């Protein structure tokens, strides 16, 4: 079987129990080749545990995880995978080039391939000038870049990035987003672990939201954040007549003494509403279309409070 005929990641009924704590509970997940997949959840939800199981670093209590059809306990599955650990540290006494040499060698690249590929990757992450310096002299942002470089040095088919932008400033984040997009454009599958929702929203095709070890929502990004268009209307006062009037244009999702959230078929009805309400004697202060953000989805799904 060609490895890329199978899903890039296939997780079936995965369980992980640490002592009395259930880290993962019957987790199911499929990521297709070529996708940029966002794996979201609050801290401690089980994101890193899932990634570590995929890499064979943690043994599942039950269930199965496969990478391009190969069981994740098989070391040869890891030839196809690049990994940027969360809070990673590398052998700081190596130079940037030496670190990439090590990882490319362990990933079974020949020395000829390494000689071509390593300068290329260093250029890609913008570290070509500092490659001969020891990693202990690198700044946080440079560490993140060399981390990304080692994750992609062997041209993997799948990269697992665990919080890749958490240490970066806004410019660095943007560069990482661009890098993720360019990897995706070359057909690489990207699995992005993050709690930075806006980052995920900007790059991912599909997401799964995980909370306390279970997937609570998954789907295409457009379906999750798009949904029904909404209008947010603020008035001088809201009464039953106002609500009755607005019901002609859509569904009242929520209201209080001065605002109404209205689900509509098309936000262009805003112009009509702006005309009708003043005629009925209401003062309209604002009337704005609202798009549900990933954050709204996330907050509505993920329970707050300590378990």
């Amino acid at each position, binding site marked *: 079987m060609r490895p890329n005929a199978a899903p890039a990641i296939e997780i079936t009924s995965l369980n992980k129990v640490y002592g009395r704590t259930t880290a993962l509970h019957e987790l199911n997940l499929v990521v297709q080749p070529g996708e940029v997949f966002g794996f979201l959840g609050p801290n401690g939800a089980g994101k890193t545990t899932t990634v570590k199981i995929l890499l064979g670093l943690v043994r599942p209590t039950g269930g199965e995880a496969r990478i391009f059809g190969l069981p994740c306990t098989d070391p040869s599955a890891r030839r196809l995978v690049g990994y940027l650990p969360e809070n990673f540290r590398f052998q700081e006494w*190596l130079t940037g080039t030496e670190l990439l040499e090590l990882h490319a060698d*362990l990933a*079974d690249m020949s020395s000829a391939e390494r000689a071509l590929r390593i300068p290329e990757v260093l250029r890609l992450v913008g570290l070509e000038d500092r490659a001969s310096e020891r990693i202990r002299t690198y700044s946080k942002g440079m560490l993140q870049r060399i981390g990304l470089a*080692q994750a992609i040095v062997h041209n993997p088919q799948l990269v697992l990035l665990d919080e890749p932008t958490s240490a970066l400033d806004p410019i660095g984040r943007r560069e990482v987003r661009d890098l993720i997009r360019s990897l995706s454009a070359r057909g690489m599958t990207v699995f992005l672990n993050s709690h930075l929702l806006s980052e995920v929203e900007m790059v991912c095709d599909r997401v799964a939201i995980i909370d306390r070890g279970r997937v609570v929502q998954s789907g295409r990004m457009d379906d999750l954040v798009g949904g029904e268009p909404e209008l947010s209307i603020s008035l001088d006062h809201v009464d039953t007549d106002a609500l009755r009037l607005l019901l002609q244009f859509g569904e009242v999702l929520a209201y209080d003494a001065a605002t109404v959230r209205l689900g509509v078929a098309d936000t262009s009805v805003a112009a009509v509403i702006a005309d009708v309400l003043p005629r009925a004697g209401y003062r309209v202060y604002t009337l704005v279309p609202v798009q549900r953000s990933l954050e709204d989805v996330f907050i509505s799904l993920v329970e707050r409070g300590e378990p």
Partner: protein
Amino acid sequence: MRKTLRIARLTLKEAMSRRLIPVGILVSLIYLVLFAVAYNFAQDRGAQAITGQRSRVLVGIGMASLTLSGLYIVNLLSGFLALFLSVGAISAEVDSGTLQAVLARPLRRSQFLLGRWLAYALMITVYVSVMASLVLVIASLLGNYVAPDPPRAIGLMVLAALFLLTLSLLGSTFLSTMTNGAVCFTLFALGWLSGVIEVLGDVQKNDALVSLGTTIAILVPADQLWRSASYYVQSASILAASNTLGAAMPILANAPPTTFLVLWGMLYPLALLGSAVYVFAQRDL
């Protein structure tokens, strides 16, 4: 095998980059120079003191003691070095997070562990062999001291150091670095005590004491291996002297090692290494 050697190379490079090897060579040279100077002074004064047969024997014993002490210190240092090298070989890598990225490669945990062991074992073997040989060369050049069988002695000293190395490598697969250090140094000290207990039991003709010492020596054979090694580097005069005393000193043996001890010294580290591979493979990282 290729990947095991790659990890071994990385480990050696680390020892170079962190200046363990260069600084280690420097302090070892200082030790040898001081040893040679002391040996030279003692030899001069000893030669002046020789007035008859009796004083010749006493001076001979004095110089032999100095040689054996020089070797004993090499043995102690190699034990410390073995423990320090591997006390955090796995645990410190897990804590710092460097291991996760390396093991996310197509690399078996056994390859990583064996690669590290190989590099440390190489360093320890070279250290013991070179240092012990140089101590004996100094003794031979400055004092005409003739050690009967240096290769066997060095072989047993290497086994003692490899045992300690593998013991602490095993500990580092499941204990924190600090806990492992405490455990290993306690066992190291216990091994040393076993020699004292055995000699005392011998003198008192106390069987219970002897079997206690022997049991400890089987579990922690480092000191037993050193004492056996000492047999092969004691000159005829000092062996004769300790035989007339009727008992060995706690740090020296007056009989060659049993076949059992030599086999145990070779198989025990291998068993520990096998256990380390097994325990490390089970662990969540």
